[in-house]
């Protein structure tokens, strides 16, 4: 009896030791070794830059002199004095609020329809819809469509049909810039999220559909709402991250199609404003403040949408 108690005490001691954080960290040495190379780079090129942006955003820094701490001044200037920033913020929010949800729904809709097709046709349709998002900067072809003289395709077609009697300088006219940017951005936006949806739809257990049919689901629309969407919730959340991040980062399209600066800053976005201060004027403190605002916009809206999507089907 006595011996037995002694042994179990030792066992308890070993168990207690194994529970401590230090032991668990020591035991996981091989895991940490494998994580190290990636996460060291991740720290230097992703985590540290975010921390630096936050710190620099409270300084005046021009890359030549040592940064000077100036408190909230950059932010105060951003929101109270910098009219172009406010305009670019408005443009960015407008672009994000429209292209984000619309592109998300388009991704889902097209993925769902493509899933109804089979074999080669499905692979072909996937390619057609996905191709624009990976074609590099080939979206400059839209410049030909939107050219301001009569050689532009849009002008040419509209004049041919007699709807226009004079060529319109599409990307040089303030009121047309944002709508066309939205169109081009939507064309470009069926990317990784779209692929995730197509793949997600294919993994849904077919027996779910059979069970739903027995339970009285009558057509494909009911099936979509009651079976398909709840079953692919993880993919829906992944797709949301992709589409939201993309919709806030619009810049290259605007620079290529509308120019930087664009007419009356009608195509300016937060990112073009950031590039202006960071790579042209070298006001790094101010540029950092813009980056921090953008960071919180992106991460904030992502977390918000994740929270909302988590509630779907609960």
């Amino acid at each position, binding site marked *: 009896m006595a011996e037995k108690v002694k042994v179990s005490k030792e066992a308890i001691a070993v168990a207690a030791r194994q529970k401590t954080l230090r032991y668990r*960290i020591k*035991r*996981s040495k*091989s895991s*940490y070794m*494998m*994580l190290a*190379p*990636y*996460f060291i780079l*991740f720290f*230097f*090129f992703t985590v*540290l830059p*975010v921390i*630096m*942006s936050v710190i*620099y955003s409270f300084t005046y820094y021009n890359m030549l002199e040592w940064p000077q701490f100036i408190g909230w001044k950059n932010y105060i200037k951003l929101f109270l004095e910098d009219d172009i920033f406010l305009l670019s913020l408005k443009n960015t929010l407008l672009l994000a609020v429209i292209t984000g949800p619309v592109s998300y729904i388009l991704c889902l809709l*097209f993925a769902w*329809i493509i899933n*109804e097709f*089979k074999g080669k046709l499905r692979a072909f349709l996937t*390619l057609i819809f996905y*191709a*624009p998002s*990976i*074609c*590099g*900067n*080939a979206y*400059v*072809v*839209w410049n*030909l469509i939107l050219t301001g003289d009569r*050689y532009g395709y849009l002008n*040419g077609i509209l*004049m041919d049909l007699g709807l226009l009697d004079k060529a319109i300088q599409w990307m040089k006219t303030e009121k047309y810039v944002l709508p066309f940017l939205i169109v081009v951005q939507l*064309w470009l936006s*069926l990317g990784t999220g779209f692929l*995730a949806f197509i793949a*997600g739809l*294919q*993994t849904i257990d077919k027996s779910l*559909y059979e069970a739903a049919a027995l339970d009285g689901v009558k057509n494909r629309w009911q*099936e979509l709402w009651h079976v398909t969407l709840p079953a692919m919730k993880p*993919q*829906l959340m*992944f797709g949301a991250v*992709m589409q*939201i*991040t993309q919709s806030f*980062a619009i810049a290259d399209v605007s620079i290529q199609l509308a120019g930087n600066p664009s007419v009356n800053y009608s195509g300016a976005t937060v990112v073009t404003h950031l*590039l202006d201060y960071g790579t042209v004027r070298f006001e*790094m403190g101010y*540029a*950092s403040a813009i*980056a921090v605002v*953008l*960071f919180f916009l*992106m991460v904030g809206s992502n977390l918000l949408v994740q929270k909302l999507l988590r509630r779907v089907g609960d």
Partner: protein
Amino acid sequence: MARAIDYTKPRKFFRRRSKQLNRSVAGNSLLFVIMAVCGAAMALPLIMVINNALKPLDELFQFPPRIFVKNPTLENFSDMFVIMTDSWVPVSRYMLNTLIITGGGIMGHVLLASLAAYPLAKHNFPGKGILFQLVILSMMFSWTVTQIPQYMIISWMKINNTYLALILPACSFGMGLYLMKQFMEQLPDSLMESARLDGASEFQIFIRIMMPNVKPAWLTLAIFQFQQMWGNTGGIFLRDEELKPLQYMLQQISAGGIARAGAAAAVTFIVAAVPIMFFLICQSNILETMTASGIKE
């Protein structure tokens, strides 16, 4: 009436469903029409890219503009090659740079991301949750946000104006690690258990068992990584002309104005065609990886 599933056969993605539930002919035709119209609209700009690349100069400046080419020619491509051979840095050098930069970025990323994904997917250790949340968080903002401090860090490391300035940041993109981890998580633990009983180290398990089983995922990571890096012109990180990638030279040609419109059309075609071609080859592998992409609670 459930169909028996043969687990010995490889999974197929374009599987035929034997019987269609809840499908009407009218609905099918409606969806077909929608897809035909939308597909045409999506494809039109890319069709223009192809046709423009084949148009002789007079057709490029025709009024009214036509979408389809009348007398296709390869003149634009030969023009492009002439301009390329004229540049003082030989075009082969640009190609070599692209090969080193994208090759290095792809191999480094696939290797490091899979190495880190394995413990995240299959081991249990303190800090696992936080590290993975950090990676998810990093997908929630784009690289534009961190571009400027990244430039400073690269200057401090003194790798400015070297290939490493593009390769190292590319190795640590978040999405690759995320996709790889989700994919590895699906593999049954029994795969590793038997190897562990045989006395294999974790690293051996990773090389001998994990890597061969996640082949579709590393192909996917490679393709996504290629798409990310293909458009990079070197920007602020590479100053020397001899270090810049092919993309930089292609954009120089496109920026040549009206006189080079033909060559520019050929350039646009090549810029778009290369990533699309890679996707075409690997489509089924990519879709297989993406099935695991969902964010689970």
